[in-house]
Structure formats: C-alpha cells, structure tokens
C-alpha cells in the first residue's frame, strides 16, 4: 500500500497488512517528530508534497525493492500537513522470508524515500521562526530521522 495522508498513520494496521505465512520477518520503520535537532528545539513540523509525483516515486521505490529482495508485502504511508512532537511522519513496513532481507529492504525504502520523493518539511522552531529543510542548498541541513 502506497499512501499520502493528512490524518494520523495507523502503523499497526499497516504492519498487519504486510504479515504473511510466506514471511518469517516483518520490519516496520517509523519516522517520528523529534524535539531536539543539533541543539535547536522543534515545536512542530509542516509537511508538503507534490502528491502525484510523490505517489509515483513511492511506487517506483516499492518496485525497486521487490526487484532486489524477495519482498512478500510492502507498504509506505507518509503523512502531510501539521505534525506535533512525537507524531509519526512516515511508516514503512516490509515482509520477507528472512530477517536480513526485511531489514535491508526497509532501510533501502526509507533511505531512498528521503532522497527522491518530493516531500518537504518545514521546521517550526521554539523561537517562533519557521524554516524549510532543503538539504544541500546551504540554507538548512538535513536534520531529521
């Protein structure tokens, strides 16, 4: 399942959806909104996306993972909009016959998601300022998850 959502992510349901009697291993990754980043305090994040392309890229990533590992089921859900501290921003679930396959596929999916899927976060710092996080622009470093 590939999904962008403005409501809280039901990671338990996502995990259930990838379980299978063909799989010996399930790996779930959650990205959650962390309070402290290099000494600065976050109070909230806002996520924006280019939805059509983001969904297309997520489907491509799932296909790439299936080509590289014996993935039984996979699901990726990314939340958009305003997130508070501790909220789940992204959930990646994958099942494979063996555990190292599931760990490798799960890590691949979240690593690549952060590189190629057109989604952006804006920091709401505790001093009241806001700042888009755009790695490599020299304006803000890649700080999350």
């Amino acid at each position, binding site marked *: 399942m590939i999904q962008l959502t403005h409501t809280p992510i039901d990671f338990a349901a996502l995990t259930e959806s990838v379980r299978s009697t063909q799989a010996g291993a399930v790996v779930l990754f959650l990205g959650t909104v962390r309070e402290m980043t290099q000494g600065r305090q976050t109070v909230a994040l806002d996520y924006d996306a*280019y939805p059509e392309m983001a969904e297309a890229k997520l489907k491509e990533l799932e296909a790439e993972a299936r080509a590289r590992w014996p993935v039984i089921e996979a699901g990726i859900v990314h939340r958009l909009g305003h997130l508070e501290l501790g909220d789940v921003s*992204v959930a990646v679930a994958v099942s494979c016959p063996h555990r190292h396959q599931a760990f490798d596929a799960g890590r691949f999916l979240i690593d690549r*998601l952060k590189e190629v*899927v057109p989604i952006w976060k804006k920091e709401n710092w505790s001093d009241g300022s806001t700042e888009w996080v755009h790695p*490599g622009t020299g304006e803000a470093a890649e700080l999350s998850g």
Partner: protein
Amino acid sequence: MKTVLKLFARARDLAGSPALELDLPDSATAADLRIALGERVPALEPILSSLLIAVGNDYAAPTTPVAGRTDLAVFPPVSGG
C-alpha cells in the same frame, strides 16, 4: 512556447506563487528553463542552482526538452521522512 510549471516548498514561497507560465523557445531544455526561471524570478537566485526540475513524474536531466510542457515542477531538494 507557452510552458507551465508548478513550484513547491521554499521555491513557491520565494516566487510567491504555486505556478508560473513561461514563454520558452521550442528547443528549450531543463537547463534553459533554470536560466529563464532565474531571470523571471530573481528572488529564486539563492537556491536556483540546487532546484530540481521534474517533467511529469520524472526528474529531468539538463538536456531534457521542456518547451511547451504543462506538467513541469520545480522544487528544492526533498526532505520527507
């Protein structure tokens, strides 16, 4: 040719608009689009060189033709997750 692009995140904020229409030569590539965009919206200068350009759902190479497309998008490096 009339060429339409969407803007996202800080690019949208700096341009003050979620979309732009440019008139580009028939031969225009993604590299040409970047230059034209900097001339049209000087406020984008601080991030112009790092902007990503997408044609449809795919990232464009500098040589990818873009003139006349209405499914272009321009945005800074992604930070989802």
